[in-house]
């Protein structure tokens, strides 16, 4: 706490469900800067897992890998028991067909050239035609693939996951779009023709529920930082299976932070699991059921919040094993 007054820790409902939402098996994440290895983790319905550590110790990478934003080098990420991966396009074979068409035609042309049925000039010309044809097939195939494939992160979203990044105007919200427009984009079921009246009603409801200081027509960048944070959380769908949060209450005052966590508690009752990273040790101790501490790309054993202390976490953040 920045000022002396001690704020009592709120009682948290104990939720015990045996249903696994997220499971990480021997996950290895490799970036140019940091490698995380042998990550094994299970998160149950309604559970809150806190990730502690200095900025850049690997907790963000883990969050991103759980959402499909970062590919894992090896191991498996299972969401509700099923591996999390992008949807492969049913047209994945078309570029290969293009290559095959070219190879077959080219071999045939070589045969014709060798047997003296065409001369070198004609051979070159026909090869050019074959390249153009293969290129056309490849182009059409690639367009079809882009239309029909789905990014792992979008699969994650579709399967009830949500990811709230820390960069509000960089990653979370679109500057220049109104709150209503954000609502339309965030809605899971989207009609082709936008029902603006309905979207406006929805966002007004969320504005009230999440105590956002802003109007439906306000643009995202006109809101203050705390209100942007509340907007991002307010745009989340309901019910969700898993929410991943980067610094969920950074920049919020204590009351707002409490309100935000109250709303997460509501979601927990619906079976939503929460994984969040935070630099605020009090928040970690207050809000999570279990805590994993990261230090220089290594994840500690997972601590039960009730059996740990600020000191222990502090030592683990510093890289000391106790």
């Amino acid at each position, binding site marked *: 706490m920045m000022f002396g007054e001690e704020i009592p820790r709120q009682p948290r409902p104990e939720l015990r469900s045996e249903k696994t939402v997220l499971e990480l098996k021997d996950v290895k994440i490799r970036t140019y800067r940091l490698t995380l290895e042998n990550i094994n983790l299970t998160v149950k319905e309604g559970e809150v897992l806190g990730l502690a550590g200095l900025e850049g110790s690997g907790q963000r990478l883990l969050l991103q890998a759980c959402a499909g934003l970062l590919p894992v080098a090896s191991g498996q990420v299972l969401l509700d028991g099923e591996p999390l991966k992008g949807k492969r396009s049913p047209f994945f074979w078309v570029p290969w067909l293009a290559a095959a068409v070219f190879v077959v035609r080219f071999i045939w042309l070589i045969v014709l050239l060798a047997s003296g049925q065409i001369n070198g000039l004609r051979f070159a010309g026909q090869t050019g035609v074959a390249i153009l044809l293969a290129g056309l097939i490849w*182009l059409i195939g690639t367009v079809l693939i882009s239309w029909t494939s789905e990014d792992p992160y979008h699969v994650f979203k579709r399967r009830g996951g949500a990811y709230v990044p820390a960069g509000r105007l960089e990653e979370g919200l679109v500057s220049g779009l109104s709150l209503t*427009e954000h609502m*339309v*984009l965030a809605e899971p079921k989207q009609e082709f023709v936008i029902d603006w009246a309905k979207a406006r009603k929805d966002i007004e409801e969320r504005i009230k529920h999440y105590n956002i200081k802003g109007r439906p027509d306000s643009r995202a960048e006109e809101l203050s930082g705390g209100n942007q944070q509340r907007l991002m959380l307010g*745009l989340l769908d309901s019910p969700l299976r898993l929410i991943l949060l980067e610094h969920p209450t*950074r*920049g919020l005052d204590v009351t707002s932070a409490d309100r935000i966590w109250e709303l997460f508690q509501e979601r927990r009752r619906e079976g939503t699991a929460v994984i969040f990273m935070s630099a605020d040790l009090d928040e970690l101790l207050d809000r999570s059921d279990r805590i994993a501490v990261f230090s220089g790309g290594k994840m500690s054993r997972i601590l039960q919040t009730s059996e740990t202390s*600020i000191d222990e976490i502090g030592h683990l953040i510093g890289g000391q094993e106790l």
Partner: protein
Amino acid sequence: MRERVLRTVWPAVPIILAVATTALLVMVYQADPVQTFSALWEGAFGSPQSTFLTLAFWVPLLLASIGLLMTFTAGLWNIGVEGQMIMGAIAASWVALKWTEAMPNAPHWIFLPCSIILSMVAGALWAALAAVLKTRGGVHEIFGGVALNNLAIITTNYFISGPWQPPEGGTFRGTEPFPEYSLFPLYGNTRFAPLSLVLAIIALIAVALALRGTIWGLRLKALGKNMRASFMLGISSEREAITSMMLCGALAGLAGAVRVLSWFDSLRQSISGGIGFLAILIVLLASLRPLLVVVISLIFSGLLTGGSVVELRTQLHSSLSGIIQGTLVLFMLLFGDYRQLFRKRKTPAEEVAEEQPVPVEAVES
């Protein structure tokens, strides 16, 4: 309320300023500005003949601009629109030149729809190439577009001097004229095709409505403003980028078809006449507002067709219309956005103060 009036009236300000500046310039050369501008007006809209000429020039310009509305909304700089027009023109020429030759007994009305469809497909595929180069190959659409523009020009030259050469021998100027039934039905003795204008208006309405009221238009808008955040909100940037580029390419291809099948009657070397680049300018000047695109593109077509009459009437060179265009662009860039204009310039200190104070994280251990 004042804001709204200002917003509707404001676009006229740079136009008035440009006209005033050009008038001064004309006076320096001892010509009568009134006479000059009336000559310009007459050249553009004075007689039915000149009006239809302006309209005939306007339609492909409008089509290309409408296409660009989509890509610019999505934040894609589709410089390749010129090449997409050319490919559309080539596809239309193929139908008008070769299909008519190959199927002399087919009903005559069948060729025009084929031309239109094929030109749109060709433009869309050419645009898809630039889009795929961007999304899969990491080639920025500006560089890909410029390269593909050149390739398209080379392709025209190849067809004109190669397989589609007129029988009397190789001039580098164009193919032989297409049969009349394969062209757009022209209005009277002019080069204006009413059908092409109808198609352009349909495209304009469809695109304006789609950008304003559909989830697709909103996705493009979001993408253009912040790609990363749009992705996080669940928009597939690759899919929307390719779609918008292809739709733009289709309209540009149609513009190319209008060029060969109404403005010209054959495939020429300079088939687009810089219309693609002009369209980019128009869309940027109109700051992506469909109605302004219509107005500005009409003004530009008028200036271009009116310029030649100015030369006949006064001793001024026909590049006067170019000067008006230039000053118009300059003043639009300078005064086009009234909000920018009236905003008090901030000192660096004020700018810093306005930014959100970032809270210091309390790491306690």
